[in-house]
């Protein structure tokens, strides 16, 4: 598999809102959306606040502090692009600001030793042309 093919496999599908999320990461910021009307904060990106349905929201920068909600460790890749990465960890993390997101846990040593609810911090990693928000144990 060529590097271009691998990059294509990682790249999220084009989406006007999603593109803004990934562009901010390129600038070193992990962002989430906050409703100006009711204060609700959320990820993944949506065009309206899922609590009050107002479309009047703003991007906010995450502090990078988070905790581990749950995770799994891939010992087998389900796409060739990830074949040389196993074992790798996919996690659900909760930002201190509230929103939850999918991510990877890196730099944890033995991934089997991860603990639910443990504190994490953001690491933005360049990866095949993307800047991917990943987390590492504090």
């Amino acid at each position: 598999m060529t590097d271009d093919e691998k990059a294509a496999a990682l790249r999220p599908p084009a989406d006007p809102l999603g593109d803004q999320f990934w562009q901010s990461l390129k600038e070193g910021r992990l962002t989430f959306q906050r409703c100006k009307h009711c204060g609700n904060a959320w990820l993944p990106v949506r065009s309206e606040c899922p609590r009050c349905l107002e479309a009047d929201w703003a991007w906010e920068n995450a502090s990078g502090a988070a905790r581990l909600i749950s995770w799994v460790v891939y010992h087998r890749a389900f796409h060739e692009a990830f074949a040389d990465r196993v074992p790798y960890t996919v996690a659900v993390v909760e930002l201190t600001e509230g929103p939850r997101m999918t991510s990877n846990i890196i730099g944890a040593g033995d991934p089997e030793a991860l603990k639910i609810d443990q504190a994490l911090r953001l690491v933005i990693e360049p990866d095949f042309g993307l800047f991917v928000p990943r987390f590492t144990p504090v």
Partner: protein
Amino acid sequence: MPLPKDVETTTPKYLRDKYAIVGVGETSYTRGSGRSTRALATWAVKNAILDAGLTPADIDAVLSYQSGDSTFAPFVAGDLGIRLNFFMDVFGGGSSTEALTGMAIGLIEAGMCKTVAIFRAMNGFSQVRIGGTGARSAPPITGDMLHSRAYGWQSAGQMFAPTFMRHMFDYGTRPEQVAAVKAIHSEHASNNPKAYYKKRYTVEDVLRSRIITKPLHLLDCCVETDNGTAIIVTSAERARDCRQPLVLIRGVVGRCTKPRADMHYEAGPISTVAGAYAREILWPNAGVGPADVDLTGAYDAFTFTAMLQLEDYGFCKKGEGGEYVSDGTIRLGGRRPNNTSGGHLCEGYTHGMNMVIENVRQLRAEADDSCPVGEDGRRRHTFDYREGGCRQVRSAEVSANLGWATPATGSAMVLRRL
């Protein structure tokens, strides 16, 4: 005309027992069917029509579900000589059988058709593998992968598994407890001549099998097979003219979701699944509760999906699912056997329909095991559950199917024999 007094919009109690599943049919479960999904569907629907003692002219509606991997209702109807008053092919996999049964009731109730065949046909091994390899691993072009693809978050089981991981943390559930689901379903499958895997496995076999994605071992994952499956739904009134003992539909809930079905992990608690919501519709609709159910068909795409659903539909207390699936309750001969055909873990992968077919046969007291068939055509069950033996549940009167699409989406159905 005044409506009955107890009617409320979410619980149409006046439809309880008014509809029936009169026919069930399937193809063989193989890896390498050598047939198109169209041919598999035609074969399965034909078997269901014959089972019901009907002719194609009696069927006037066909529904199917698929994930871009199968044929469509009009082709199958054409191959069977059926003229349609209604057809629809919907997108989706697990949890669709129960949901479409509910839709069939609505269609007949609305006067749009009279007798509905529902099928699922898939070359789930030889063409599009649900495990996420083969054609299914190609990068998707839909917008819903925005927040998973870059992290390598692929394949159904791996997307479901954080729920189980969190359940282990929240409630102390152990891998060996859910491994018992595979062991028990494999015992059931060993008494099912048509099961793809008839071999009996132990809890140790499951725990010794290689880790695919922690916390899932290879044997925690279901089989991938090629097959067609079908059921026929009609009114109880028409059902009385059919060939088989009556199996009535008590209540259905379809594709009921947790908050934020698109990314349910964003709303806690994640160790709870859609059944916790669906049960609020299912049990009032059916007019029975878990204690009244004699056997279950909890969707076993993975060992833990059966556990999570049995727990959240209230067959045990929240957090005690691990105990419930490993203490013998769900074994043939136990208090409430689950997936007596072997389910997805052993019989074959059908996106839930084989579990409904099995429960219909159980309620007819006609589980197709190796017990002898009498001169009247009825099986003489021995209730000897040893390997290769009987798999009929004694005095099975009420069954519950708990269909799973994801942790966030479920459907369910209660059936009873007359």
